[in-house]
């Protein structure tokens, strides 16, 4: 490994965890810097959690506050559940990056800036009258002014590269400096550079030099006197990789398709923040994954229904506005009783809302968005890597119960990442699918005694020619039928089938005591913040437990029993109180909501304060 030894006269301090925020212009390569730092930290054995913060505009003008692109990483030697409420260190490549992110830096935190980025023009674009680096306004922080651009240029001087190319290497200088500061292994980035610029030796040389220049700068400069050591975390043994929620969701689907022997068919229409599911799956054609970019979301799901009718694993992935468009077709899938997975990567709404910001406000849409009585299974992933598990589970339920399943994720876990303990394919549960072939007394709407699932009888099977459709059908035969009693029977069957899924899912697990003063019930991406807040409250001696729901319809069978054992129930959600309202109506419990709709995840501190408030009152 590249030597990265501490200079003798610099002291090393061991810390448990740290949050670093890299910020710069969209063109400054901050996402790359962040993801390289992430890989290096993962390899150093830390637990971690990351969150990218992209500008909504594609190419926002350089130097503007709305063009700032950021990447936050929280890593440590203990279990890390969130990307961090506030950062300890802010690396700012220009004034706009400083201005946007200063309010998320803790008091006394460290700021590292690129001096050359603070030109009069950039200061003006960021709305500074005076240079904040000189006017004393940052006296609350430890500020380090580094000639990042200049030092990078010096290091590359004799390579005869254009000034644009040189400027593009400055993020690697910053990265090198942070590697020095936090004792990170450099090798993964060096090999990444070699691979990335395989055919451009001059860029390999340039980026390598910039990275090393940053590293050595930390060692020799007088500016930095301390480096930090963050020891490896105690993670479960295994092979790990870092993974985003969307990538995990896509892999979960591919895995389930393989383990069920079904060919996967994805119909999708691009929409933030779901498009990466389409992108990821489009790469895996050698798994016989067929991906189809449809003309709109209605088409995307309709095509997936057609594919499911033909015996494929039909999947569609979208976000809120796309969900709204798909609803009539989801109703059809409920009627046809075909397996289908619908992934909704939620974002802020209503309407176009906040495309790049997170929210959990599609739960009601998932539950009740269709006309009439059209129940289906609703699942929610809790963390980026949990998207893998829940996507796999969505497929299992869909094919076993012949039903559409809605899988809820959101922008926060879709783009956020964490280490994933990579499973062995052979350890994944086998998923059984049998297409019906028996011609004797074939009844398309006969039902499995246990699951109430109807047979999957696909075209191409001799003797099973039959018709299905969205009109109400006769019990067993599936022929059109408008009789009152029959309609009641069929509505009941469709409801009962979904309810029976509760017999086939894990009990809800309580984190903490099984009874006590306060139970927090969460779902989806709030998992990390709730877990951290509960941990902190417990160290303060409070009686707080936590249940995180992955199954929202049906609920786990033991949920009621759990709820009744606590004096108070708090339901934090990034909406106006959707799960809390479901819990109140089903279990008649006085669940209290804690609701935030700012396009942002909960901060641990916010939840901690809310817990304090409830237990005080």
């Amino acid at each position, binding site marked *: 490994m590249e030597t990265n030894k501490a200079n003798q006269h610099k002291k090393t301090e061991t810390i448990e965890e740290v949050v670093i925020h890299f910020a710069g212009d969209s063109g400054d390569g901050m996402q790359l810097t962040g993801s390289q730092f992430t890989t290096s930290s993962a390899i150093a054995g830390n637990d971690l959690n990351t969150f990218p913060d992209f500008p909504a505009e594609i190419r926002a003008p350089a130097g503007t506050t709305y063009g700032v692109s950021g990447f936050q990483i929280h890593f440590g030697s203990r279990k890390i559940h969130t990307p961090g409420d506030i950062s300890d260190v802010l690396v700012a490549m220009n004034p706009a990056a400083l201005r946007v992110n200063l309010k998320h830096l803790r008091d006394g935190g460290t700021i590292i800036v690129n001096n050359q980025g603070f030109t009069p023009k950039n200061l003006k674009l960021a709305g500074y009258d005076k240079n904040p680096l000189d006017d004393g306004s940052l006296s609350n922080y430890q500020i380090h002014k580094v000639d990042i651009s200049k030092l990078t240029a010096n290091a590359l001087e004799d390579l005869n590269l254009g000034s644009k190319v040189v400027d593009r290497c400055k993020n690697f200088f910053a990265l090198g400096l942070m590697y020095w500061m936090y004792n990170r292994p450099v090798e993964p980035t060096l090999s990444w550079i070699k691979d990335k610029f395989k055919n451009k030796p001059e860029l390999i040389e340039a980026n390598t030099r910039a990275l090393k220049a940053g590293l050595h700068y930390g060692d020799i400069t007088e500016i930095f006197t301390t480096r930090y050591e963050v020891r490896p975390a105690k993670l479960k043994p295994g092979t790990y990789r870092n993974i985003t929620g969307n990538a995990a969701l896509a892999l979960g689907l591919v895995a389930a398709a393989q383990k069920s022997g079904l060919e996967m068919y994805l119909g999708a229409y691009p929409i933030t923040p779901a498009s990466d599911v389409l992108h990821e799956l489009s790469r895996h054609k050698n798994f016989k994954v067929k991906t189809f970019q449809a003309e709109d979301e209605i088409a995307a799901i309709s095509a997936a229904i057609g594919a499911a009718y033909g015996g494929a694993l039909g999947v569609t992935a979208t976000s809120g506005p796309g969900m709204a468009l798909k609803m009539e077709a989801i109703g059809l899938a409920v009627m046809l009783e075909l397996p289908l997975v619908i992934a909704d990567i939620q974002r802020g709404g209503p309407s176009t809302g906040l495309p790049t910001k997170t929210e959990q406000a599609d739960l009601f849409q998932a539950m009740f968005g269709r006309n009439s009585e059209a129940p289906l299974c609703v699942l929610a992933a809790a963390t980026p890597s949990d998207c893998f598990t829940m996507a796999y589970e969505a497929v299992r339920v869909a094919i076993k119960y012949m039903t559409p399943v809605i899988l809820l994720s959101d922008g926060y876990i879709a783009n956020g990442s964490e280490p994933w303990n990579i499973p062995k394919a052979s350890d994944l549960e086998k998923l059984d699918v049998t297409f019906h072939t028996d011609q004797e007394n074939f009844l398309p709407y006969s039902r499995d005694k246990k699951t109430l699932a109807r047979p999957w009888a696909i*075209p*191409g099977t001799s003797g099973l020619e039959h018709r299905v459709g969205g009109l109400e059908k006769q019990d067993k035969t599936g022929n059109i039928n408008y009789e009152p009693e029959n309609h009641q029977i069929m509505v009941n069957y469709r409801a009962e089938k979904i309810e029976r899924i509760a017999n086939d899912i894990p009990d809800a697990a309580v984190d903490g005591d099984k009874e006590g003063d306060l139970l927090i019930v969460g779902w989806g991406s709030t998992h990390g913040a709730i877990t951290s807040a509960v941990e902190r409250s417990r160290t303060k001696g409070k009686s707080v437990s936590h249940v995180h729901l992955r199954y929202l319809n049906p609920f786990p069978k033991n949920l009621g029993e759990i709820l009744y054992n606590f004096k108070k129930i708090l339901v934090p959600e990034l909406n106006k109180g959707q799960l809390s309202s479901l819990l109140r109506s089903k279990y008649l419990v006085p669940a209290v909501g804690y609701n935030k709709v700012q396009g942002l995840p909960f901060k641990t501190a916010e939840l901690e304060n809310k817990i304090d408030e409830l237990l005080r009152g």
Partner: protein
Amino acid sequence: MADTAVQEPKKYTAKDFQSDQDVRWCPGCGDYSILAQTQRVFPDIGVEKKDIVWVSGIGCSSRFPYYMETFGLHGIHGRAPIIASGLKMARPDLSVWVATGDGDLLSIGGNHFIHACRRNIDIKVLLFNNQIYGLTKGQYSPTSEFGKITKSTPWGSIDHPFNPVALALGAECTFVARSLDRDPKHLQTIIRAAAEHTGTAFIEIYQNCNVFNDGAFFHLTEKGQKEENVVVLEHNKPLIFGANNDKGIRLDGFTPKIVSIENSEFSKDDLLVHDENKNDDVLAFILSRMTYDPDLPTPVGIFRKTYKPTYDTEMQKQINKAIEKRGEGDLDKLFNEGETWVVE
């Protein structure tokens, strides 16, 4: 997936394609004829019943799949072409057919229709054009004529109608044809030709709704009128029509004109000769534009029949290529892509 054993297609009769469901269209409805002609042609198309799927949307016409003893999916309003497309992509081995109405295909489902055409996905679309909304009891449709008086347009419709053939041509559909419910022989020929085509095949079928739009096409279907008002397109043949086959269509620049070929300066040799395989769209477009011209006969037959790669085969090719290049997917390899590390 399905049984793959190669079998000689069974010998069917029309009756084999009749399902056990009672046909519930109004007595006298043109849909009966379309169903009958389809059932007559299907024994000859060389596909087993088990490999045929009819997909439909919503409307009187969309009840069609229930009456065909094949696989069938009665979908939702307007979405038949895309449900059928998804099915065909997943199962290129199937013969996939769409039954749809003018409201279903051109109003609520217009988007899916044009996109199916441009993709050239191998599905066959039968448009039952009665120029009215039948199932919802008689509102005007996107093919109703300007000024049409219906329940929803008591003062007359102020919508200009689509010309479905021109629309399909514009969307680059590779097989575009028109036929009539009341000309069984012609309709059979066209359905057979569609079955033989590889790629999106579109047939506009003028269909009489005797309840809400009776006689809309009588000038094209009834003896004594149709002879002067219809010109039948036949490949490599001049456009001749008239009770005594004494008239023809001649191109004057790009403008089709009626000429007499008896006792006149013109003969058969001066007439426009139809070429359905012409890849440039000019001829097919000129012919399609004759439809609403009150001075010209309405063309029926195959406007265009050309070939280009179909979406479903291209999709399958990419899968095969990916497997060839990277080998069949290996989950463990996929999971371990990129940077990994081991925790002991």
